[in-house]
C-alpha cells in the first residue's frame, strides 16, 4: 500500500518513484512530508478539494483529448484568409519552425555568455539584421509586441525630451492604440503622457499635414506614425512629417512592418529617431495573435541607448585572441538592474521569436526582401483593382498602399455581418470590419493580401464577393 504522502510515478517528475522520494526524505531528515509545510498556518490552508478533471497522464490520451478540442476550430490554411490588421499571414519557412523547436532553444530560461553562447549569437544576428532593414545601429532584444514597442518608444521620447505630449495618427491600429494608451498612464499620476490624435486626410488616408502643424508645439515629445499605416497607406510625406517634428524639437518615432523594407525606404532615411515595429511577419506563425512581437531600434547614440527598457547583447571579445563573445550591455538600467529606478520594465518577452526572425532574415537575404516586397505589393494591388471593379464596392485609396487596403461597401445593401457569414460559408475569411473603430469610413473593411495569395485565390475572393453582395 502506498503511503498517502508518497507520489505516484509520473513521466514529468524523475523523483516521483518511491525509492528516490524516500531517499530524499532520509537525507533531508524528514519523516512526514507535511513537516516541510508546517510554516504555512492552518488557517491559510484551503479546505476545499481540487477538481481538475480526470488526469491525462498517458500521452496518447492527452493527445487525443487535445486534438479533439483543437480541431473544432477552422484555420487559415484550410480557408482563404484576408484578415491582417496587426497579425499577418505570411509564409513561415520550415527551418524557422525547425529552429524554434530545437530543444536547446525552446526549453531553457535565460543563460550566460558561457553557458549559452549560441543563443546569444543568434540574438545578436537578429539585432544586426533587423538593424540593416530599418537602417539603425542600435537594436534591443524584442519586446512583447508592436504596440508595447510603441508604448516604450513614447516613454523613451518623453524621458529624452522631458515633455509629456505625443502626437499619434488617427489611422493608428486601435488595438495598438489601446496598448500605447496604457503606457501613457492617467492624468492623475505623475508621468502621465497626453495622447493627441492627428487627423487623417480622407482623400489619401495619410496624415493631414495641416492638422499636424496645428497640433505641433514645443510641448510635444514625439510624433509617431506608421509606415505603412494600419490602413495600408504608405506615408509618402514622411520626410516632411519628420522635418516638422524636428523643428519643434520632438522625436520622430516610426512604426514599420519590416517585411516592406526590401522595397520601401528605411525610416532612418526620412528622419526617424526611434523605429519600432512588428517581428511577427518575419518567420512567426499568427498563432491566433500569439505570434506577435515588437522591436525598438535607434541610432547608436548614448542619448537613446540609455533610455532603452530592453536587454540587449553586444559583441565583445574573450580572453582568447579572435574569439567572439556576446554580453549584455546597459543591464544596469533595466528593471532587473535597478527595480523601480530602471527604465520601464522588462522580463520574459519573445526571445525565441528573435531566433525565428534571425533565421528568416538570413534565409531571405537582400533579394528575398526585395522579391517579397514586390510580390506583396503586386498581389495586393491586383486584389484592390479587381475588387474596385465590382459594382458597388470601392477601394478607398487605390494607390500608394502596401499589403493592406480599405474597401468600402456603402453602396451595397447587405450588412457586413451577413456578408462575412456568407463568405465564411464558402471558406473565405474576409477582412477586418472597420465600422466600429473608424465610423467615418462608413461600411468599410480592411483587406490584407500577401505573398501567399495566388491570383486564383484573389479571383476566388472577387467572385465570392460578387455573389455575396447580391
Amino acid at each position, binding site marked *: 500500500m502506498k503511503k498517502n504522502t508518497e507520489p505516484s510515478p509520473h513521466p514529468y517528475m524523475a523523483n516521483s518513484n518511491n525509492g528516490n522520494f524516500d531517499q530524499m526524505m532520509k537525507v533531508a531528515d524528514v519523516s512526514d512530508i507535511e513537516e516541510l509545510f508546517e510554516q504555512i498556518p492552518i488557517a491559510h490552508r484551503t479546505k476545499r478539494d481540487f477538481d481538475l478533471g480526470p488526469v491525462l497522464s498517458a500521452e496518447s490520451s492527452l493527445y487525443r483529448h487535445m486534438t479533439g478540442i483543437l480541431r473544432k476550430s477552422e484555420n487559415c490554411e484550410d480557408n482563404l484568409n484576408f484578415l491582417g490588421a496587426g497579425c499577418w499571414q505570411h509564409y513561415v519557412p520550415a527551418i524557422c519552425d525547425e529552429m524554434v523547436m530545437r530543444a536547446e532553444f525552446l526549453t*531553457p530560461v535565460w543563460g550566460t555568455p558561457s553557458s549559452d553562447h549560441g543563443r546569444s549569437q543568434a540574438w545578436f544576428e537578429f539585432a544586426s539584421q533587423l538593424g540593416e532593414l530599418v537602417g539603425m545601429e542600435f537594436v534591443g532584444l524584442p519586446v512583447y509586441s508592436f504596440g508595447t514597442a510603441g508604448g516604450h518608444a513614447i516613454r523613451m521620447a518623453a524621458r529624452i525630451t522631458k515633455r509629456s505630449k505625443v502626437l499619434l495618427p488617427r489611422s493608428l491600429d486601435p488595438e495598438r492604440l489601446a496598448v500605447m494608451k496604457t503606457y501613457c498612464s492617467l492624468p492623475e499620476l505623475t508621468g502621465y503622457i497626453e495622447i493627441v490624435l492627428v487627423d487623417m486626410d480622407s482623400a489619401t488616408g495619410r496624415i493631414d499635414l495641416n492638422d499636424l502643424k496645428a497640433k505641433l508645439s514645443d510641448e510635444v515629445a514625439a510624433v509617431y506614425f506608421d509606415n505603412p499605416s494600419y490602413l495600408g497607406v504608405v506615408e509618402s510625406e514622411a520626410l516632411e512629417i519628420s522635418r516638422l517634428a524636428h523643428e519643434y524639437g520632438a522625436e520622430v518615432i516610426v512604426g514599420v512592418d519590416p517585411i516592406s523594407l526590401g522595397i520601401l525606404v528605411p525610416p532612418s532615411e526620412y528622419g526617424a529617431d526611434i523605429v519600432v515595429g512588428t517581428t511577427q511577419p518575419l518567420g512567426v506563425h499568427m498563432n491566433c495573435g500569439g505570434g506577435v512581437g515588437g522591436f525598438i531600434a535607434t541610432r547608436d547614440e548614448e542619448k537613446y541607448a540609455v533610455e532603452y527598457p530592453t536587454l540587449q547583447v553586444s559583441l565583445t571579445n574573450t580572453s582568447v585572441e579572435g574569439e567572439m563573445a556576446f554580453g549584455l550591455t546597459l543591464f544596469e538600467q533595466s528593471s532587473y538592474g535597478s527595480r523601480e529606478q*530602471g527604465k520601464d520594465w522588462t522580463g520574459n518577452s519573445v526571445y525565441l521569436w528573435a531566433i525565428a526572425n534571425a533565421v528568416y532574415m538570413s534565409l531571405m537575404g537582400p533579394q*528575398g526582401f526585395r522579391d517579397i516586397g514586390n510580390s506583396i505589393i503586386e498581389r495586393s494591388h491586383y486584389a484592390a483593382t479587381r475588387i474596385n471593379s465590382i459594382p458597388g464596392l470601392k477601394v478607398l485609396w487605390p494607390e500608394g498602399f502596401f499589403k493592406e487596403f480599405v474597401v468600402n461597401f456603402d453602396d451595397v445593401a447587405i450588412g457586413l455581418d451577413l456578408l462575412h457569414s456568407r463568405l465564411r460559408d464558402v471558406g473565405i475569411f474576409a477582412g477586418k470590419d472597420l465600422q466600429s473603430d473608424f465610423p467615418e469610413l462608413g461600411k468599410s473593411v480592411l483587406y490584407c493580401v500577401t505573398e501567399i495569395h495566388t491570383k486564383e485565390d484573389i479571383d476566388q475572393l472577387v467572385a465570392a464577393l460578387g455573389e455575396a453582395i447580391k
Partner: protein
Amino acid sequence: MTTIKLKNYHAASWDEPLVMQMGSPGRRGAILPSTESGISDVVGEAKNLVSPNMQRQSLPILPELSEFEVEKHYIHLSQQTMGMMGVSLFGTCTMKYNPRVTENLVYQPFVAQLHPFQHEDTLQGTLEIVYRFDELLRELSGMSKFVFQAGGGADAAYTQACITRAYHASRGELAIRNEIITTAQAHPSSPATAAAAGFKVITLPLEADGYASVEALRAAVSPRTAALMVNNPDDIGIYNPHIKEWVDIVHEAGGLCFYDHANFNGLMTRIRAAELGFDACMFMLHKTFGGPKGGGGPAVGAYGCTEALIPFLPGPTIGKNDAGKFFIEKEGPLSIGRVREFWGNVPVVIRAYAWTRAMGAAGLRDAANISVLANNYMEKRLLEIPGITKGLPELTKRRLEMTRYSLGALTADTGVSTLDVQNRMTDFGVDAYWLSHEPWFIPEPFTPEAGELWSIEDIDYWIDVLAHVCQEARTNPDLVKTSPHNQVVHKMDGSGLNDPKKWATTWRAYQRKYPASNK
C-alpha cells in the same frame, strides 16, 4: 560526500562565424512565388506602385546563403547553447519538463494558422481550451476570472498596476492613492511596473524572519496606499505567515492586494490566493505550468482576479453561454483596454492546459511535495561544502522550493567570486545558475532550485560539481577565475559593455567601431 565521477565534458564548438560574415553574392535561401502574368498585366511593374521618394534604393546588407547553410548555421548555434540540456537548477524560475507532445500540437495549422480576428464561430476549439484553462486556474486560486494577455510575469504585474490605476480612478481616488507597497525581496517586476504605471513605490525591508514585518507594513500604509504587490514565498523561501493580516491591513487602508504567484510551485494545492483575501494574482504559465521558456518567452503571465475587479480586466475576454458556445467579449467601459495586442500567447496557454491535465490535481500536489523536498535534500548536501552558507542562516524554518545561498566565505578565502564559480561549473556540463536579483543582500549569492523535474542523480551531480569547483578555488583559484575552459568560447571580456564607444549591438555598429573587423 559521495564520490561521483565528474563528466569529461566539452561544449560543441564549431568556431562559428556570424551569419553576416557568411555567404556569397547572389546565393538564395528562399525563392518567392513568381507573380502570375495575369497579375502583372493588371498592375504593371511593382516599382511603379511605390512613389519614387519612398522606394528603397540600395538593398539591405543581409547575408546571401543557401537554405542548408542557414540551417546548418543555426543548428551549430543551437548545439552551442547548453540550453538546459546540461543540469539547470536555475532558481526563481522553476525548471519544468516541457512535454514534447504539445509542440506537435501547436505547430499544426489548427493552432499556428489561426487569426485572432476570425469569427468566434470558427474558433470554438481554441476558445474552449482557453476557457477551460481559465476554469482550472480559478479552481487552483479561488479567483473568479483569468486573462492571458500579459506577455510574461512582469506584464501581469503591469496589468495589476494598470488595474490598480483604473480601479482607484473609477472611485475618484487615484490622485491621492498613488503609492504601491512592495517588499525588498519582491521580484523587480513589481516595483518596476508600479513605477512605470505612475505610482510611487514603497519598499519594505527584509527582516530577520525572512520577510518584512507587519509593523513595517502598518507604518507604510496610508490613505495614499493604492496597492500591495508581493510574492510569497520569495527567493528566501520562507512563507510569510502574516500574509492574511497584511491583506487585511492593506484592505483596511483602501488598497488592493496582488499576489505575484510566480513561486506557486511549492504551494500548489495547499492554498488558494483568493481565500487568503487577495484581490488578484498571477501565474507564470512558462514556469509553473510547464510552458517552454524559449530563452525568454513567448510567455504568459496569467492574471486572475476576484469578481470586483473583473470590470477592469483588459479585453477581450472569453465566455461561454448556456448552450455551451464560447464567445469573445469586448471589454466594458471600465476596462484598462490592452496591455498587449490580442488575447494572449495562445500556444503557451494550450501547452499549459495540456500540462495541467497531464498532471492532475494529485500530480500537482506530488510536484509541490517533491520540489520542496528536493530543495531540502539539496540544502543538506550544499551546506556540507566548506565556504557555502545559507541566506539568513539563523532561520531554521524549512525553505520552500528554493532559497538563496552565499559563496561569500569562499570568496573571502580565495578571491574566487560567484561569477567565477558559475562560469567554471559550465565546464562540467552544468547550466549557469541564477545569482540573485538586484540589489544583492547576500554576498556572492546563488539561488539553486531543484524542482520536481530533475533526477536525484542530476541534483547530486550539480552539487558535486559545485563542491569540486569550490575545492579548485582553494587549490587553483586561477583555474576558476579564468574559466570557462571547456566551453564554446573562453571567458568573456566585459570591460567595454557599458562604454558607448565600445558596445555594439549590431554588426554594423561593430564594423564601424572596430574597422579591423571589416577585412
